[in-house]
């Protein structure tokens, strides 16, 4: 038997009187509105139905499509439907998506209007399963749905944003029926208020721009990364003076002989490759319940393009020298900016280096590029006072950050890795001894 609490909630908006408690017995609740006596008030009729009602949501459309336009309702409130019969049509991106009734039953409530933008997973209509004989309950649902409609119109705006991060709504059968309790709840946050009377200086205009596919994919992968890995970041400082000196000495010769600019990326790439040999876990990945180690280092180098961030891969970086690495990075960078990077170019890196320093960042926590284990973030080089042999002198210092997946690497390993990189870069000659 249903508890008083549940029936009270289900009645929600209904007008309760002493009579209804008698009329609304467990018998009528369990057998549904068909056997309800004529004495039972309308509100109770409706709330009884909700205990059996199902909310049908906007189905998955095609890959990566998150919303569409509800073009037409093929059925109206009160209509009966056969199992799998079309109830509504949604169009998106040349696709006609049919929303079908999960089983035979009656349409109780429509939760969106024609021409509304509806999101995947959004509640679309309420329907009561079961063979229906007559249409007498039509008046009550229509009245309630009219009340619910203005509220739902507002909440439809909120819903696309709210439904995305939330996992599928709790199922319909147990306690508080979703359609009933949701509208009042959603009223509380931001209802679309009409403009206030007080004049406001400045434009109040909003511009909506659809996210392009690339951005959507990037967003998806970043969230995946955050959810999967136990990410934390360790920092260190690098005295770049030795490296800068080396660059000053040889960049012209390199440019002349090899037609490529000698930057810092090659030094970092090399330093990382050597450090990865010592801490192989940073160059591995988790596959189910196994850890897969690589003998090679495929370095993903983050490149900013007008369309967004891409990470083309330098294959077998561990075997390349400085010049070769620079050449490869330059070629990939050009391909990226021309929009000619293929999926193969970007797949399968084992470690990522990201350079936020070119834009002036001082500190930062880069995000892991799944399924890799770690990412090194480079930042801007700043002249800072440091202590060397008891003296305070000015040195160019770069802060580096290593975000790593704690499932794979312990703090000790991560810190050691970063310290190794620092040592190699502060004295490049060490790289020859490794």
């Amino acid at each position, binding site marked *: 038997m249903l508890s008083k609490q549940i029936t009270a909630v289900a009645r929600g908006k209904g007008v309760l009187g002493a009579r209804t408690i008698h009329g609304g017995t467990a018998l009528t609740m369990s057998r549904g509105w068909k056997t309800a006596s004529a004495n039972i008030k309308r509100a109770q009729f409706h709330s009884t139905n909700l205990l059996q009602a199902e909310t049908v949501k906007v*189905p*998955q*459309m*095609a*890959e990566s499509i998150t919303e569409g336009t509800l*073009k*037409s309702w093929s059925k109206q409130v009160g209509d009966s439907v056969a199992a*799998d019969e*079309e109830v509504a*049509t949604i*169009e*998106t*991106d*040349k*696709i*006609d*998506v*049919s929303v*079908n009734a999960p089983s035979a039953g009656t349409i109780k409530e429509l939760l969106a209007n*024609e*021409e509304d933008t509806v999101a995947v997973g959004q509640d679309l209509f309420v329907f009561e399963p079961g063979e229906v004989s007559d249409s007498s309950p039509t008046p009550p649902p229509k009245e309630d749905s009219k009340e619910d409609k203005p509220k739902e119109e507002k909440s439809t705006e909120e819903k696309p944003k709210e439904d995305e991060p939330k996992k599928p709504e709790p199922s319909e059968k147990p306690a508080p029926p979703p359609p009933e309790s949701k509208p009042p709840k959603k009223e509380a946050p931001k209802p679309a208020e009409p403009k206030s009377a007080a004049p406001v200086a400045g434009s109040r205009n909003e511009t909506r721009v659809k996210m392009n596919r690339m951005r959507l994919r990037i967003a998806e992968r970043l969230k995946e990364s955050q959810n999967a890995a136990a990410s934390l970041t360790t920092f260190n400082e690098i005295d770049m003076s030795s490296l800068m000196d080396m660059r000053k000495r040889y960049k012209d010769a390199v440019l002349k002989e090899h037609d490529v600019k000698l930057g810092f990326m090659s030094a970092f790439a090399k330093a990382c490759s050597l450090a990865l040999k010592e801490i192989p876990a940073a160059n591995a990945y988790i596959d189910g319940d196994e850890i897969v180690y690589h003998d090679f280092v495929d370095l993903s180098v983050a490149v900013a393009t007008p369309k967004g961030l891409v990470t083309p891969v330098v294959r077998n970086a561990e075997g390349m020298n400085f010049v070769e690495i620079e050449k490869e990075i330059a070629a990939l960078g050009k391909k990226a900016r021309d929009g000619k990077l293929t999926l193969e170019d970007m797949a399968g890196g084992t470690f990522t280096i990201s350079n936020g320093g070119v834009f002036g960042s001082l500190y930062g926590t880069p995000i892991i590029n799944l399924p890799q284990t770690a990412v090194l973030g480079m930042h801007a080089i700043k002249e800072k006072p440091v202590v060397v042999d008891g003296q305070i002198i000015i040195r160019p210092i770069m802060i580096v950050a290593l975000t790593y997946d704690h499932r794979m690497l312990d703090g000790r390993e991560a810190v050691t890795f970063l310290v190794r990189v620092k040592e190699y870069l502060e004295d490049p000659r060490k790289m020859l001894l490794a």
Partner: protein
Amino acid sequence: MPSSPNLIPTHSIYLSKSTNPYFNLSLEDWLFRHKAPNEPLLLLYRDDPCVVIGRNQNPWKEVNLPALRVREGVPFIRRRSGGGTVYHDLGNTNFSIHLPRTSFDRHMTAQVVLRAVCSLGIDATVNDRNDICVGKEKVSGSAYKIVSQRAYHHGTMLISTQLNTLGDLLHNTKDTMETKGVASVRSPVRNLQQFNRGVTHEAFVDAVVHEFSKEYGIRNVDGEVQIVSEASCRDIEYIQNGMSELPSWEWAYGQTPEFTYTVSQAFEWGTVTAKIRSKHGIILDCACSLSVADDSVSSMSAIQPGVVDSLNPQLKDIERALLNRRYGFVSAIEILKGLGINGMDDETGSGVRAAKDIALWLERIMNS
């Protein structure tokens, strides 16, 4: 002679011999709904000349209906998938790939057709709307449909279509018709034969069958290919019903989303502006307003002053006469009946003449 055995939806590759667009679309829908949901299916067909609009489009906005009427026997048909308006003739081959909904990937299916086109020696690519192009020009348009367990990607392939006819029939610029219907995205098009003269319908069909079979692991291709004739579907009620549903007013016009059409016409005695609102092919309301040009009266010898005053109540009657009628299916005579004017020849008073002008004009604009 024994009658053809009924078609069964258990094979993977169907080639229709019929060029009846109503049959082909109904066959496609029947295969879509009756094939085992987890098996891939390919259908290829060609249609006699027709204009095909998307499920949620507005025919008055998309199709050049007057030009269509001039061409006898060329209908417009609303298909069941989304997307925009296309023109079919025997120089165009239609492909339709059906897959389980969960593994449906439009880009993959486009690649199957792309590979087929490339195998014919054409340097084709897929653009960001998932259409097959050669350079900047489209050679194919695609549309899709998803239901509970199945999805399909179907599209056109221009091999040797009459592109002038295509341009003519799809040419429609009603700037003052605001519609909630899905808009077509117009692009320049070309035939495959313009890139490789040897490409034919048969060659394309073979190439698609080959690539489809490779992609979906179809062995024994010859055993899987079924040639379909209309006769083999004579007893399939679903297909017969589909063939009568498609040309019905309820489907062809009655699925049109809401639109508002604002038009003005200058007559000798003044200018009438009509704003007609229609949904699902029915006129919801029509607001007519009249304005008199200052110099119009002096140029007319027969118009009496005050005729304009008599017109305003008549406009109201005209608005009422259009209410709940089918947009595009109201004749001037029916409009005038609502004003108590019988026929075109009856009565020649100038007020009546103006009403007749308006009625004829409204009939014409709704048919344009």
